[in-house]
């Protein structure tokens, strides 16, 4: 018996060995480019005619690229599994088993093969479809055959972020659509049961068995598929940007991409990330706000969930107040601004916050060098009522006492923000949201001076679907911005307080007509502005400070708008809108009268008139037509043109190179007429068929009336006759923006180049009301050349490399030409305004992310980002100034705000 078994065993072994030898030698010719390993194995199975068994949960979750040219199967498998702890073996009968090298015993092999053959295990490629059932409305709610409007939203399961460009396909009808820039879609189906296939790269597809009885909402969450995670969302966005939207100059910032970009001190930042987009710039590092196409920072309407923000800066401008972990979507309109938006000339930045997760509790956050932040979200009542809370706090203030410099050690700084958002899904047709946000900054330098400022926002909105054609969104909000400059100690200790309140109500309706060829938005918006009086208050015991209060008045702005998105035919789409705006300045305010035929100066005041809060001081009104036309040559190429007229009634009175927290928000009045801009844009857009590449070229020209400018060396603080320091000029900006984006593949990113000019002309009646002799001169934001290169390399699912390089022309400055000394004081004599430029700016940043979060879908997941800002430590000058040195000579100096390399490390987590 023993001898018999030995013969059989030996024979079997020899046979298997011989067969294995021939099996492994099968020549494979195949090319794989960024393909998941299960897909490679499936192809090898097909080509070699073998069965390959493995545990689906243990197979490496990254993409590979190979070019096998008559390689043996053995070599191919070795290369595929290289670097992993997986080994393979042939168990006879054309079966190859892959498993962990320390578990490859016979029991494991038998169990694995049995699991496959019983259906317990299957290829991850077959695990993509998740089926769900959904019923909207009561049975019989609508007459059979009625066409229903299903409004949907598609989100990421773990982050609740909107998924842009996901497809929704009705299997029975063949109809389909894709989610818009907010992850939303509208679908019209008759009553009945339908199979909706929802797909997006990198996510497990979902098949929804929809029983549609009435109009309603649906929200679908997609699970990230660990096997396909390396696709980036830019792909879907690219499709939206270039081919579907009629909108020119629309920029979407991918929140995931934003988080991975190299950033100053590792702080992901919405506003700083915008600076890599074409046409968006800033006057320099550390300055708050941003400039769009050469416009002033107050010409941007910055909103958080529809509520305006009057100062979006933390740490004097180094960071923005948006908590990146709570941000759902970022949209910047800089070309065509739809009629539902008004009140600013250059752009609308709409930062949407996530709704709380309705299905489970999740959190995410980050721990950085100078601050940490966290967001927690989850259901209070599952699928009905959810909450999202978030917060951020800085701890740089704890570091200052360790600094050797005594003044620095005695300084203090901190910033923090908190937010809470409640989302109540009352019914499939009604959703109610409440959002509260508080941001706070404090800075004190020794006992000499300091700033503090605070934003408070509270708002509520109700989204209603009336029927398949008609929906309404109602929102109300209150926003308070308050800032103070203070001197903390001494006889002259003071606080200078200023700010602005805004109360807003808006009703926006959406009507689909003309067989859905028209999407008609119409509504009304009312804004009440209450500019807080500027108040100088002595601190206790400060006997050398005279209290002073200057009323700035308030204002009411009403807007009525209608906007039609008209799909004229498959090639032509038109977005046409009209906004009517009415503005009234109200008291309390004192208006001074001046001598006719004389400049407005303190010496020419001839009287004054005082208005109470209920009085209307001055009214302005006008229409604002907006239009944009898109012509598609084919599915991938289009040309667009637009015209916009915009009016701005609220102005930031700021005469510093970068805004300070105590800059004044001032409403239009008798001596400060509204700014009015006409903007013309033209662009051509091209996507490659596989949407891998996107090319765009946009040109624009804008002319502005009543652009506020300032007399030389003005006194703006506590000035009750502000008009004696202000001038109104003309503005003109023009330029071209070229952008090339790569949306898919191992390397993604974009290159954008912007040529832009921004000029001002102030040619008043009197010499004191004229600047540079009435000639056109560059505005402070005129940067003719800007180049951004942003790259992202997905090395493998866990390792990501990012870089960005930015270059722009130096900003215009006014410089001393010579000097004189009188009464012991050295005084420079300056050039004409903005007639010189500082040196060009350029910088390279790198970041490397080790992302362990992608190995699993649930539970605690973390990623670590190492970033280096300004890697070659360029001392980019912000300004050139002159002062008397110790030798009593006057010398020139350059100031670099961040003149060195800034490494940082940030840990991001999700659970």
């Amino acid at each position, binding site marked *: 018996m023993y001898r018999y078994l030995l013969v059989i065993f030996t024979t079997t072994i020899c046979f298997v060995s011989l067969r294995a030898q021939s099996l492994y030698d099968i020549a494979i010719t195949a090319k794989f480019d960024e393909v998941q390993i299960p897909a490679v194995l499936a192809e090898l199975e097909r080509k070699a005619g073998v069965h390959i068994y493995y545990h689906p949960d243990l197979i490496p979750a990254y993409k590979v690229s190979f070019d096998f040219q008559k390689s043996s199967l053995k070599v191919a498998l070795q290369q595929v599994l290289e670097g992993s702890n997986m080994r393979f073996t042939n168990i006879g009968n054309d079966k190859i088993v892959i498993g962990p090298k320390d578990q490859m015993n016979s029991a494991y092999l038998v169990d694995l093969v049995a699991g496959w053959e019983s259906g317990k295990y299957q290829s991850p490629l077959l695990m993509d479809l998740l089926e769900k059932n959904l019923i909207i409305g009561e049975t019989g709610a609508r007459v059979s055959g009625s066409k229903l409007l299903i409004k949907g939203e598609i989100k990421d399961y773990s982050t609740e972020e909107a998924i842009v460009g996901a497809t929704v396909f009705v299997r029975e009808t063949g109809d389909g659509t894709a989610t818009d820039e907010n992850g939303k879609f509208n679908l019209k189906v008759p009553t009945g049961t339908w199979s909706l296939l929802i797909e997006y790269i990198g996510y497990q597809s979902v098949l929804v068995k929809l029983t549609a009885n009435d109009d309603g909402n649906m929200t679908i969450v997609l699970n990230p598929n660990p096997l396909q995670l390396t696709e980036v969302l830019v792909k879907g966005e690219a499709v939206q940007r270039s081919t579907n939207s009629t909108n020119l100059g629309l920029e979407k910032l991918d929140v995931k991409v934003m988080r991975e970009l190299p950033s100053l001190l590792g702080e992901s930042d919405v506003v700083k990330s915008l600076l890599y987009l074409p046409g968006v710039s800033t006057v320099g590092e*550390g*300055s708050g706000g941003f400039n769009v196409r050469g416009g002033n920072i107050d010409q941007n309407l910055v909103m958080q969930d529809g509520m305006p923000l009057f100062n979006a800066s933390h*740490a004097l*401008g180094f960071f923005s107040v948006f908590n990146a972990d709570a941000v759902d979507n970022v949209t910047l309109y800089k070309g065509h601004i739809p009629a539902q938006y008004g009140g600013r000339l250059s752009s609308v930045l709409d930062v949407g916050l996530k709704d709380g997760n309705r299905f489970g509790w999740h959190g995410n956050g980050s721990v950085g060098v100078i601050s940490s932040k966290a967001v927690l979200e989850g259901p209070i009542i599952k699928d009905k009522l959810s909450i999202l809370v978030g917060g951020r706090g800085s701890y740089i203030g704890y570091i200052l006492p360790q600094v050797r410099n005594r*003044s*620095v050690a005695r*300084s203090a*700084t901190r910033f923090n923000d908190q937010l809470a958002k409640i989302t109540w899904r009352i019914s499939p047709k009604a959703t109610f949201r409440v959002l509260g946000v508080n941001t706070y900054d404090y*800075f004190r*330098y*020794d006992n*000499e001076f300091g700033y503090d400022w605070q934003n408070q926002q509270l708002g509520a909105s109700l989204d209603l679907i009336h029927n398949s054609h008609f929906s309404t969104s109602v929102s109300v909000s209150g926003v308070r911005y308050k800032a103070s*400059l203070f001197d903390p100690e*001494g*006889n*002259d200790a*003071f606080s200078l307080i200023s700010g602005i309140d805004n109360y807003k109500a808006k009703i926006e309706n959406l009507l689909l007509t003309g067989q859905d060829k028209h999407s008609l938005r119409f509504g009304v918006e009312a804004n009440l502005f209450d500019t807080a009086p500027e108040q*100088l208050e002595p601190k206790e015991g400060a*006997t*050398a400070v*005279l209290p002073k209060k200057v009323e700035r008045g308030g204002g009411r702005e009403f807007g009525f708008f209608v906007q039609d998105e008209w799909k004229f035919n498959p090639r032509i789409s038109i977005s046409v809108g009209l906004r009517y705006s009415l503005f009234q300045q109200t008291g309390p305010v004192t208006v001074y009268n001046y001598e006719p035929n004389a400049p407005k100066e303190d010496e020419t005041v001839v009287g004054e008139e005082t208005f109470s809060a209920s009085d209307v001081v001055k009214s302005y009104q006008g229409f604002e037509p907006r239009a944009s036309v898109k012509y598609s040559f084919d599915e991938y190429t289009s040309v667009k043109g637009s015209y916009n007229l915009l009016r701005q009634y609220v102005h930031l009175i700021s*005469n*510093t*190179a970068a805004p*300070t927290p105590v800059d004044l928000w001032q409403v239009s009045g008798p001596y400060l007429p509204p700014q009015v801009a006409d903007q013309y844009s033209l662009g051509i857009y091209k996507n490659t068929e596989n949407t891998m590449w996107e090319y765009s070229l946009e040109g624009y020209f804008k002319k502005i009336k009543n652009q506020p400018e300032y007399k*030389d*060396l003005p*006194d703006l*603080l506590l000035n009750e006759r502000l008009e004696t320091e202000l001038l109104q000029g003309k503005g003109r900006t023009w330029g071209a923006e070229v952008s090339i984006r790569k949306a898919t593949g191992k390397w993604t990113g974009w290159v954008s180049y912007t040529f832009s000019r921004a000029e001002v002309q102030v040619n008043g009646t009197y010499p004191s009301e004229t600047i540079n002799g009435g000639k056109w001169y560059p505005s402070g934001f005129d940067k003719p050349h800007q180049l951004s290169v942003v790259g992202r390399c997905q090395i493998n699912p866990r390792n990501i490399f990012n870089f960005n390089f930015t270059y722009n022309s130096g900003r215009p400055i*006014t410089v*001393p030409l*010579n*000097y*004189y000394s*009188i*009464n012991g*004081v*050295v*005084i*420079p*004599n*300056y050039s004409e*305004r*903005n007639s010189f430029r500082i040196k060009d700016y350029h910088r390279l940043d790198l970041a490397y992310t080790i992302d362990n979060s992608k190995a699993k879908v649930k539970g605690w997941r973390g990623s670590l980002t190492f970033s280096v800002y300004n890697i070659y430590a360029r001392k980019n000058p*912000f*300004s050139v*100034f*002159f*002062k*008397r*040195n110790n030798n009593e*000579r006057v010398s020139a*100096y*350059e*100031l*670099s*705000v*961040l*003149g060195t390399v*800034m490494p940082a490390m940030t840990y991001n987590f999700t659970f």
Partner: protein
Amino acid sequence: MTTNSVIYNCVWVLVAVGISGCIKEVSFKQETSPSAIAIYGAITNDPRPQELAIVQTGGFEKDDAQRPVIGAVAILQDDLGNKEQYIEMADGRYILSKTIVKGVPGRTYKIEIVLPDGKIIHSNPEKMPAVLPIEKLYGRNDSTQTLTLYADMTIPGGQEAWVRWEADRVRLLRELPKGPFGPPPKICYLWTHFSRQEANLFHSNEINDYHVIGQDVGMSNINSTFYERNCIQMYQFSTTAASYNFWGDVQKAANPKGTIFDTPPAAVKGNLHYVSDPDTPVFGFFEAMSVDTARLFVYRDEFEGIIVTDPCNLNYSSYGLASNGYAPECIDCLLKESATLEKPWFW
């Protein structure tokens, strides 16, 4: 610290938070504008002669300093029709003896200057305000070795007042003994100005009497120059709105920090202009102001917590040692600039 100076100082905000801001000196050769005329002068109610300075602007290179204007003719005129010509001294300085035109509050003054090339410059008329007395002058030191000077005053209700302060300092310097057979050591009096680079300004237009207590009017570092007795002579000028605005603009233009919060600079416009060519700038100011003077004597033992060392101590090295180991002015006090043996009348 004023609100404006607070904003100007914000460069230190950046430095303070340790974000590596840096300032470096650079060469800044560029095409300069043609040299222009700059003038400063004043008429006050002080009966002593007063100076007028006329210079041509200079460039930033070492060999391009500002140059005095020699050979100009300057005439001061009041609203009574009195005229008096300045007497030319050295280095573009001209002296008004006030033998004809007196400084009287309530009177209006203007100046006419004829340059050597024949061009004529006029100033806008300035009316001298009433005298605003200093009620009290006192000083305090803090731990950073700074002496801060404060003044109290009362501004009458209904009177719009613009005030500016300047200060001189007189200090005593004793030579070291020359030995038993040498001459007796001299005692010198050294006159210096408090820094005027940053002007101290104040404005009030209260309806009722306004008592200003503890107004910050000047400061000085405390060092060995306070070893001997010092006298600080504070001038409180009651000026005009135009003068106040001028010095406010000078402060902004002359003290840039180059920070992101700086007000964009510009040339400071004064109250002088060419008669035949108003578009060509003339820099500077001619002002009419009334002055009240107060004096504060300061002794080193009044400084709390600060030890003031002897400048003529052998171990004290910051003055540059003479060959015999002592600072030169300790051997001959007249070597020090602005030193005089004449004892001030108020000493």
